[in-house]
């Protein structure tokens, strides 16, 4: 674990806390960042109950088996389906090592892979009434609420960056915000692209 004062997010150089759009009213598009989220890439055979049981035991969530769905409670960790034998566990900062160890222990003796990847990515949050329009400028997926609603996720291309897109459930009364897990080397590019795409709708930066 890295002491927090020594950590830098890939957007630090943009000084977003002094962004001119910090307090914009009537913005159709809201951008934010959640840094240092813990990510664990999980590989295994979902047809084997010893695998799914072990994951449930370690993470307290049932593995999502349907393509492009996510599982998990509002505030707690989530598991995103990435492929027939691949998942991404998303958890709050600081909890990754403990969870990875718990998973490795639970999966001891099985053919499975637990790989911490949280340092690879940062999480850009995007919300507001035009969030889907901005995403649609760079993403070919159907983002209509009937096709991509809360609890869904996808690995896709946004502009020219590969991303993992997830729409978590929103707490009551809160606006839903998409999570864009992007590789840290692409984060600055993607942020600039999103700001540009947001221009016509009005932008607020919530950091």
């Amino acid at each position, binding site marked *: *674990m*890295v*002491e927090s004062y*020594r*950590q*830098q*997010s*890939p957007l*630090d*150089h943009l000084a977003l806390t002094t962004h001119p759009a910090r307090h914009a009213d009537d913005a159709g598009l809201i951008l934010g960042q959640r*840094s*240092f989220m813990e990510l664990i*890439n999980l*590989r295994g055979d979902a047809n084997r109950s010893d695998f799914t049981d072990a994951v449930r035991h370690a993470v307290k969530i049932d593995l999502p088996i349907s393509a492009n769905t996510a599982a998990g409670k509002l505030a707690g960790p989530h598991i995103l389906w990435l492929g027939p*034998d691949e998942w991404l566990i998303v958890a709050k900062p600081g909890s990754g090592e403990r969870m990875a160890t718990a998973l490795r222990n639970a999966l001891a003796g099985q*053919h*499975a*892979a637990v*790989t*911490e*990847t*949280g*340092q*690879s*990515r940062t999480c850009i949050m995007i919300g507001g009434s035009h969030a889907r*329009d901005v995403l*649609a*400028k*760079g*993403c*070919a*997926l*159907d983002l*209509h609420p*009937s*096709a991509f609603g809360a609890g869904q996720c996808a690995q896709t291309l946004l*502009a*020219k*960056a590969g991303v993992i897109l997830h729409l978590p459930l929103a707490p009551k009364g809160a606006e839903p915000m998409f999570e864009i897990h992007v*590789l*840290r*080397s*692409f*984060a*600055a*590019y*993607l942020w*600039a*692209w999103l700001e*540009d*795409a947001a*221009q*016509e709708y009005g932008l607020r930066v919530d950091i």
Partner: protein
Amino acid sequence: MTKQFRLPEGGRIDRERRLGFSFNGRAFRGYAGDTLASALLANGVHLVGRSFKYHRPRGIFSAGSEEPNALVQLERGERTIANLLATRIPLYDGLTATSVNCWPSPEFDLMAVNGLFHRIFPAGFYYKTFMWPVSGWKLYEYFIRRAAGLGRAPEHPDPDTYDKMNTHADVVVVGAGPAGLQAALAAGRAGARVLICDEQTEFGGQLLNERAEIDGLPAFEWVAAAESELAAMPDVRLLKHTTAFGHYDHNFVALIETRAAKISDGEGKTRQRLWRVRAKRVVLATGAIERPLIFSDNDRPGVMLAGAARTYVNRYAVRPGSRAVLFTNNDDAYRTALDLKAAGISVPAVIDVRHAPGGELPAKVMAAGIEVIERSAIVGVEGTRRVKAIEVMKMNDAGSGVTGKPRRIECDLIACSGGWNPVVHLHSHAGGKNVWRDDFGIFVPGPTVQASAAAGAANGSFSLQACLDQGAQAGAEAIKLIGFTPAKASQPRATNDPTEEPWRNLWLIPSTRPTGERGKHFLDQQNDVTAADIELAIREGYRSVEHAKRYTTLGMATDQGKTGNIPGHAILAKALGQDIPATGTTTFRPPYTPVTMGAVAGRMVDQFFDPARRTPMHAWHESAGCKWEDVGQWKRPWYYPKPGESMDDAVSRECLTVRNAVGILDATTLGKIDIQGPDAAEFLNRVYTNAWSKLSPGRCRYGLMLRDDGMIFDDGVTSCLAENHYLMTTTSGGAARVLAWLEEWLQTEWPELKVYLTSVTEQYATLSLAGPNARALLGELTADIDLSPDTFPFMSWRTGTVGGVPARVFRISFTGESAYEINVPASAGAALWTDVMHAGEKHGITPYGTEAMHVLRAEKGFIIAGQETDGSVTPYDLGMDWIVSAKKPDFIGKRSLQRADCMRVDRKQLVGLLPKNPTDLLPEGGQIVKEVLKSPPMPMLGHVTSSYRSATLGRTFALALVKSGRERIGQTVHVPLEDRSIACDIVNPVFYDPDGSRLNG
């Protein structure tokens, strides 16, 4: 704008909003709601340009996208756009346009002399004339381009922005005329997601141009009600001024939306947007385009399509002439006669090629006192810059010739109609077949492989009621096929919809002389292709419609022959003595109308053209003033010049510091793949050329990967992290490619192997310390890793804490010096880098970039995959026999290495080169010869792959691939350049520390 040409009332123009504009330097006025074409006509301007080849005066011919003549250059300077259609430019205040293709003005054009020499400009003129000598083309082209060019491309970058939008819909409706609106309503009312678009700035399609009635009210009212009903539906998107320009496989439809009302109207919005639409069902309600009658001198200003003349009167309240004759083969043109007369235009006659036209509309026309001249033809047109009069003669029964005495009728407008062609373009783009309908003489959409259907005029159903009914039906069918239930709704009735009699398709209107003599029968007005040109092509032996098209250039102009193609193909069919469906049409290709290149690029320009990937230490490098090198998408420090240093100075300093003290390199970009599973070692055995079974935890090994053809693909160091757990590194540029390659083998060839691969390239920041002081420096930063060479030897790794950060330290070297690659969590990379620089000060540390790294590795004879290799190089070629296991049963590429070609002794082999003059720097890529002949060709032995100045060696040196190179060590070869030749000695490719004592020390 004069009262003479603008009707006192009516039209869909806003008379409260007067707009000023300029055309060819003259100031005019128009109204909001006008197009440039209607505003010009309202000012009495018919002559808008000159034709492409003969420079004949040309006027406004249509009112839409089919316009062949009224091409203009819109605006000036950086925002200028060439070859826009005046009929499709909505008027705005301050608009500036000029004619294209005429000089100095359309009224007086110097190139019109071409028309006098038409006999030397037949079809295929360029092919026949400018072929000899071949070298002459450069000269000819200069003059031809000047004489025949259309508009001018802007000379500066476009200041406007463009973007793209992806969207999906259950039903996409192309065209918002009566059929399209009905289809959208049917789908929308059932709750489907609908996108409806139309190229015009208003919905309504042909209804905008007509005095039609629906349910007893003006049709506009029905359009407005339909539009507001659609707009109120939550999942219906309405796009105006949006052309569906391409229909592709999987029901992918491309649209271009013009968003800015005027060209310079940014307002934070993009000027145009390219929509990428994926549809479950497509309804093509694209309408129809009127086709002309092909009569002698049918291109004179004042000749216009009959529907267009009606459009100018009804929609724009403009009189396109003061005395109009109609020339028709159908009843629809009689509508125009009635509408023109109602607008106060004198209509002396309707000339009909049919015998005794007797439908409802002709009856109304006769009742209105307009003369109908049956079974007759216009055989001549008076007036060159504007129609003054026509000559009319009776035709024989077959319509192949004329008889009797010509009758002269004065007029300034000839409104002609040869029937209507369904717009089958989009249907055809996506592989749909077209079917000939003999009753009308039209092609209609036939079978298609897309989930699409046509409705209304696009489907050959021309009456308003048929359009309304078919649209509703197409919409209902579309949604039923994707699981919706159509809602019940009352259907609109067209309340003045006279029935029409059949057309008479007479493709070439006879005149008093053979085709091509004196008067010209124009088919393609933009490319100046006449009926005589088609007949000439047949005489010269062309049979296929595709060949005749290319030879004559029929339909190859920017309008793609929207008006003249079908008559042209019909004339071709007749000349070939076959029927029209057997002759066929040319291929319809996207785009339907021209699309701005800016919209195709969208926002993928400048900083968004390609992502610049940043390492965690990017900001530090930037503030240190480094120069960047692009490696794939990564930005990597190339070198760090100090004030006053040249690149050579900086690289020499960086190299010497690494050799004599310590250097630090940002190696984060190296690809990293985490490999886990009980079969991981077996997997490595199969993908690398060397053996991996015995690599124990804590140890590292260099590996070479081949493609299945035996050629080197990638290389890197792989470390054993634990039993069944490895960390592979790849080249920076090859990371994604290698992972995809490995996954392909795992998933398709070796599914039985229990191995999981995960990319961890970006999980770690990698700081590489190299040089004799590296160990001492690292020792100051870590307390829990024993760095003594005995416990931490070369090619091993240890875990611990470096600078307070958890780290894996790999003792591997690409420089030939004692070196440590420190991997830490990416977020801590920048902080640790700063700490290392601080602690390294007293050890003489310097950051070094990729250029110094390249020099240092080349001094050691280490290869770079992609520099020493180019997809045709085996390990043996590089002298790396030691890394190819002879014992392993198999690995990717093993069998290919036994191919005769891979075993040749005269293959190109890796050697070193030392120029005889130690200051001569060989160019990379330079060709190597045994002796320099007076002039090429000369036998070539190979080429230079890497070449540098070495501060360590005090001279230049190079690596090269040379035929039988190892045998030639000691020989002299030459690298001939443009102005001189460099002589070099072939040497062993290891220039520095050949026994590796520094690296192991």
